[in-house]
């Protein structure tokens, strides 16, 4: 197929694909799935952190956290816009989320139990997200690539804020240090899971790489994350909850890297299947927001129609 060959050549030449250009159905579908999943993750991701806004311990922390969660809504918004350029509507995507057909990142099915979790999410979860997202700035699809450039800029800011919370806590009272260690214990493994199963088991990886939607292997990114994060934990005086962690000179083509233990993929697939600690609550909260807000959206729509009619009549 010459169309398909031309498409692949553009990709190989690092030329961005734009909305109105021809693209293979599979490329379009893969992108819709990935971008909307990413958008849904931003939306659902508001909930675990939003859970602490009313309890943030200082006015500054409250403002920072609120702004962060607001940023996530904003990311959701421009990711939905990017997906819409591929021929779906935001309402369709929302329907897929609320019906449980579309996925969102499993990490958000874990509860935020203490203030330290807000630090840990910023540090680890946003850290892992950035690791996943930085390569997506070079994604072959233009609107997605541009959205990710904006997202990444804000995420790195969020990560620094999260690390700052962890820093204050780990230098704080005994209870605060314990809180920080406990948060690291609970968020460490789920963060490693964010890179997805080993590439060998990952269904879409090879094609996505060829299409320039995916740049790095899951395992490579996970390794990079571990190598970056272990020293940060040490700096905080906290212990990563993995006894297998040990420096290995031979790793990363001789540049060295950390060996680490096996991720519990049973837990990953269990949470993915809906049996995580908060799956029902997260989706329930979004469904409730949507249903409770129907009258509001209808009201605005009705007013817009009235205004339009008045303009025509005038």
């Amino acid at each position, binding site marked *: 197929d010459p169309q398909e060959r031309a498409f692949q050549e553009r990709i190989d030449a690092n030329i961005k694909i734009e909305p109105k250009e021809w693209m293979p159905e599979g490329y379009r579908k893969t992108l819709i799935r990935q971008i909307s999943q990413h958008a849904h993750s931003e*939306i659902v991701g*508001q*909930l675990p952190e*939003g859970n602490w*806004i*009313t*309890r*943030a*311990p*200082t*006015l*500054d*922390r*409250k*403002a920072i956290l*609120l*702004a962060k*969660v*607001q940023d996530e*809504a*904003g990311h*959701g*918004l421009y990711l*939905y816009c990017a997906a819409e350029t591929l021929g779906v509507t935001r309402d369709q995507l929302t329907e897929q989320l609320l019906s449980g057909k579309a996925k969102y990142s499993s990490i958000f099915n874990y509860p935020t139990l203490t*203030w330290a979790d807000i630090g840990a999410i910023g540090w680890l979860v946003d850290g892992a997200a950035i690791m996943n997202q930085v390569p997506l700035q070079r994604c072959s699809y233009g609107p997605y690539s541009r959205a990710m450039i904006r997202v990444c800029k804000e995420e790195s800011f969020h990560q620094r804020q999260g690390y700052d*919370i962890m820093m*204050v806590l780990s*230098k*704080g*009272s005994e*209870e*605060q240090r314990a809180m920080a260690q406990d948060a690291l214990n609970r968020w460490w493994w789920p963060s490693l899971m964010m890179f997805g199963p080993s590439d060998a088991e990952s269904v879409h990886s090879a094609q996505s790489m060829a299409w320039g939607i995916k740049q790095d292997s899951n395992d490579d990114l996970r390794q990079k994350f571990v190598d970056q994060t272990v020293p940060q934990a040490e700096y905080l005086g906290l212990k990563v909850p993995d006894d297998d962690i040990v420096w290995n000179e031979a790793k990363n083509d001789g540049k060295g890297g950390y060996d680490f233990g096996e991720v519990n993929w049973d837990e990953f697939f269990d949470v993915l299947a809906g049996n995580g600690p908060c799956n029902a609550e997260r989706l329930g*909260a979004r469904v*409730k*927001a*949507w249903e*409770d*807000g*129907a*009258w*509001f*959206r*209808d*009201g*605005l*729509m*009705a*007013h*817009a129609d*009235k205004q339009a009619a008045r303009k025509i009549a005038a």
Partner: protein
Amino acid sequence: VKPAFDLALRMGDNALILAQRNAAWCGHAPALEEDIALANVALDLIGQAKLWLGYAGELEGEGRSADDLAFLRDGREFRNVLLVETPNGDFGQTTMRQWLYDSWHHFMLEGLKASSDERIVEIAEKSAKEVAYHLERSTDLVIRLGDGTDESHKRMQDALDYLWPFARELDVADDADRAIAAAGIGPDLASVAEKALAYRSEALSQATLTAPTDAVPRKGGKAGVHSEAFGFMLAEMQVLQRTHPGVKW
């Protein structure tokens, strides 16, 4: 000092408590755009609360920071009006509460720009820019929802009927308000009320909504006599500072 302190505390507490209520919507609003917009308003109000309470602490001269005032006072010491602490209800009630406050806040800040206290003028000027946007947004929403569907109209009218008596607490001057005006620290509340009422009448008519005419003011907050819901709200807001006294965050 007393009138300036009272004024700063009242303005700060109003901003803080309204922000706290609004912030609880985060992630639960009826549309993504509203989630973002309401968070913006809450962020502005938190910023204003910091300025007002910070200044109140300075005036008091006992070394209390804005955070100390926000997180370490008991309910009876808060000076916000009852309006801003009313429960969120549905998004219509939240919107109506915001609008009733914005439409007073705006004219109050205009008045405060003429304060004899320079710091108050500064804070008022900074806040007024933000509040102009708050008022524009909430007025727009009240009009669109009031003149929307039958259901959105009914919800907004119910919210207006419920909240209007609370909004009147803003207008009724007590001794502290009179001392504030007498000292030239802030405007006469009657003049603020008049402007707010005129502004609201215009908007309500566009919204096809009707304000109650015989509403007895629901008041108490300025004297620290709050609603029962307020204690629960504070317990939540202050839990970390109360549980771990004296540490850094």
